[in-house]
């Protein structure tokens, strides 16, 4: 009846493994011997609980129950007497069969619908009490909340425990931070990092490998109890769960020292330190970030020095560069040497090293430091950034100019020029040369401005300049007479020479000797005085009779030539002669013609001859009133004009 063709046979098997009876102390397991078939069947049969179905049977079939109970009790008795263990099973099966048979009969009759009709029985509605439900739910929720709260509490306490035990952040978070700033990779079980500038375009042979390990726990667990009171000590202590191991050759602190020596005497010194910060602590337990940065700095300095040393050996200079130990010496200008040294101190002897360069730090030149720094970076940048556009078929490396050389039909000379590249050392020497040129020019201009009071000399340095070129504008003017005459000069300060563009557009080239510039400025002061007198004469109504910038008369000047001019008063009876010499200064003479009084002599018999011009008499300028030369001249001219 219940059998269906669609049903599937399911075979249930006991696991092959036997049950473990006992585990001995040495770990061996003793298995139970497998049950025999009859034993296992009895076992399964005992597991069947018939009591429930029995009770239901009793309730439903009241008429038959009596007998059944009797038989049950009989069978129970029989079972208890354990005459036949299958008795209860048999009775149960029999009663079940009876029920099924009755049910089948009932169904057969009901199917006919003549004697029996099946009516749906109204099921008694389940009594629902909302309040009870709410309470039940409330209780259940409270229970759940309690579980969650206790769990959270436990997590919190454990977190606090961890924090209290060690001030260090988690290893993995630290590693993540490290990974954000440094290149890391995992090689089998260790983590290897790279701090070299390879990815930035460096081609230095030395690698910058470092290893990342987890700091040992013992150190930290032992350290907090030793210093519980001072909080600062704990902060300075390495509170990192990472340990970074840097190769010994990259440990410590390095910097490039640039010294400019003038015949063994220090002129200035530059300390190149890429960190630019104060001295790093000697504590080997510094934070990994600082440690790695220091190591990277060491690597950079080493590369820079290596490059410079290589170039120093290769360069063919008129005075050969010297490379001794970790020092490079190059001659910048005659008598001035540029000394570039690599200072690398390991952590141990850092303290006594630091005391040595401390006094020279006062001359620290940030510009030279920066340019040295920049030069290598530029090389790195060029290595990785190729100029666009580069065709996919063309090789990488040549400059943009070289790419265009083909289509633009560059000739041999241009191509040869393209192959010439400036080395780092050449560039830094040029910058040092320019530095000296600028310093010398400044010095010359300042001393002249101090020495010469009469025409004022003011110099304006251009703020926009390059490491190898700068420009200064010089104005020579007289106080109070700026509008009358002004002599502007422009001096281009180059690497080994000066170029001066004069007022009249003449271009003068000068060498590195400061005396040449000094002479030039003095010549211009001289020229300024003469020109200013002429300009003043015009405003005073005097006539300009003649001038000569290069006077052939008088004593020979050590530098330049004397210049002179002649001025005539408005009515022509007075003549002023001015002679300017770069060395001895200004001489002024006055002549009257005709003289106010005439005494005939044997040679000059008539008064008319006096119109030809008289004798010149020197004016003692220093005795005259007036702030400066032009003021004196103004007063002189004014007095001579009013007299007539």
């Amino acid at each position, binding site marked *: 009846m219940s059998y269906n063709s669609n049903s599937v046979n399911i075979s249930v098997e006991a696991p092959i493994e036997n049950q473990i009876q006992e585990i001995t102390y040495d770990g061996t397991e003793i298995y139970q011997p497998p049950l025999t078939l009859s034993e296992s069947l009895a076992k399964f049969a005992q597991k069947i609980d018939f009591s429930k179905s029995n009770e239901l049977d009793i309730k439903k079939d009241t008429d038959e129950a009596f007998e059944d109970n009797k038989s049950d009790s009989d069978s129970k008795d029989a079972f208890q007497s354990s005459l036949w263990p299958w008795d209860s099973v048999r009775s149960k099966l029999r009663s079940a069969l009876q029920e099924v048979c009755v049910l089948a009969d009932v169904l057969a009759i009901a199917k006919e619908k003549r004697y029996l009709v099946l009516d749906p029985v109204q099921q008694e509605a389940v009594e629902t009490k909302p309040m009870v439900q709410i309470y039940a739910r409330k209780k259940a929720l409270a229970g759940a909340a309690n579980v969650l709260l206790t769990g959270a509490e436990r997590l919190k306490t454990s977190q606090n425990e961890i924090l209290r035990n060690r001030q260090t952040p988690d290893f993995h978070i630290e590693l993540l931070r490290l990974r954000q700033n440094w290149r890391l990779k995992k090689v089998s079980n260790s983590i290897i990092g790279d701090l070299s500038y390879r990815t930035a375009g460096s081609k230095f042979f030395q690698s910058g490998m470092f290893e990342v390990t987890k700091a040992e726990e013992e150190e930290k667990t032992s350290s907090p109890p030793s210093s519980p009171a001072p909080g600062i000590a704990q902060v300075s202590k390495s509170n990192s769960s990472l340990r970074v191991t840097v190769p010994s050759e990259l440990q410590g602190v390095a910097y490039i020292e640039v010294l400019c020596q003038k015949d063994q005497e220090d002129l200035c010194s530059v300390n190149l330190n890429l960190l630019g910060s104060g001295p790093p602590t000697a504590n080997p337990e510094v934070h990994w970030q600082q440690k790695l940065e220091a190591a990277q700095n060491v690597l950079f300095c080493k590369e820079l020095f290596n490059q410079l040393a290589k170039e120093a050996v290769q360069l063919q200079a008129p005075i050969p560069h010297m490379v001794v130990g970790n020092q490079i010496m190059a001659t910048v200008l005659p008598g001035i040497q540029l000394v570039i040294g690599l200072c690398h101190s390991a952590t141990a002897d850092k303290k006594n090293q630091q005391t040595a360069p401390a006094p020279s730090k006062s001359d620290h030149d940030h510009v030279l430091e920066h340019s040295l720094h920049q030069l290598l970076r530029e090389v790195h940048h060029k290595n990785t950034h190729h100029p666009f556009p580069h065709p996919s078929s063309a090789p990488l490396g040549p400059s943009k100019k*070289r*790419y265009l050389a*083909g*289509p*633009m039909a560059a000739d041999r000379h241009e191509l040869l020029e393209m192959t010439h590249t400036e080395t780092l050392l050449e560039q830094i020497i040029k910058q040092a040369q320019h530095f000296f040129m600028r310093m010398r020019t400044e010095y010359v201009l300042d001393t002249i401005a101090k020495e010469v009071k009469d025409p004022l000399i003011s110099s304006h340095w251009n703020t926009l300049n390059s490491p190898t070129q700068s420009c200064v504008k010089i104005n020579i003017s007289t106080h109070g007479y700026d509008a009358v005459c002004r002599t502007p000069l422009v001096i281009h300060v180059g690497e080994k020479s000066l170029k001066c563009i004069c007022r009249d557009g003449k271009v003068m080239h000068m060498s590195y000797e400061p005396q040449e510039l000094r002479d030039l400025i003095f010549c211009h002061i001289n020229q300024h005085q003469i020109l200013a007198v002429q300009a003043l004469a015009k405003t005073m109504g005097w006539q300009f009779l003649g001038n000569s910038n290069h006077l052939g008369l008088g004593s020979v000047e050590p530098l330049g030539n004397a210049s002179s001019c002649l001025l005539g008063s408005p009515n022509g009876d007075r003549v002023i002669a001015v002679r300017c010499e770069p060395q001895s200064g200004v001489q002024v003479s006055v002549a009257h013609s005709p003289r106010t009084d005439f005494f005939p002599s044997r040679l000059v018999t008539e008064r008319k001859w006096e119109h030809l011009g008289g004798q010149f008499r020197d004016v003692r300028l220093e005795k005259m009133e007036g702030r400066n030369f032009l003021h004196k001249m103004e007063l002189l001219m004014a007095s001579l004009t009013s007299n007539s």
Partner: protein
Amino acid sequence: MGVTVVQNFPITENRTGPSTIELLTKRISALGAIQQGHFLVDCETYTSVPQLGNPRTVHILHNSEQPATVFSILETENKTIPLATDGLFDLLMIKMANFYTSKKQTKAESKGPRYEIGDFLVKLGTVTVSQNFKGVLVEVEYRPCVVPAMCWELMREFLQGFLGSTAQSAPPLYLQNRMQDIYSPIDTIHQYLEQFTIYRKAPGLRT
């Protein structure tokens, strides 16, 4: 880079090529010229295969004065297209061997000594077309100037100074229409191509 004039120097009956070069060398040296290496200008001509339609000719020229450049002149029926390119253009021509085939017999070159005399650059070239000696080409460059009209008179005088009566009184045909333009290296190449074409057509020595 200045203005360049390329001119043929006729070979007289009783002279050979080397002796003509020697004669010119003697003359130019007497003027005070100093030899500065050698030079080479070569020209190879490719013609398009019939499948491409209208016949086209590509002349590939190299000039040692512009060592990084390959010059090419494409001649179609109604126009010529000059092109100055990178050295890689030679490799491109190899790739195009299926469309443009070269005639090995027409490879022309002019090579010889290179002299500097003041602002002038003088090159005495021996012209060979597929290894056969054809004549002598004289190239004179006046470096400070870039407009042919402005220096032609001077150059003519200079040419007459050492070539004698054989120097032409009119500028080269190619330059005649471009006397006022700014001279560029491709103009030199045009002149060489003009000369090479004449050499190729000439059956024997060009006089």
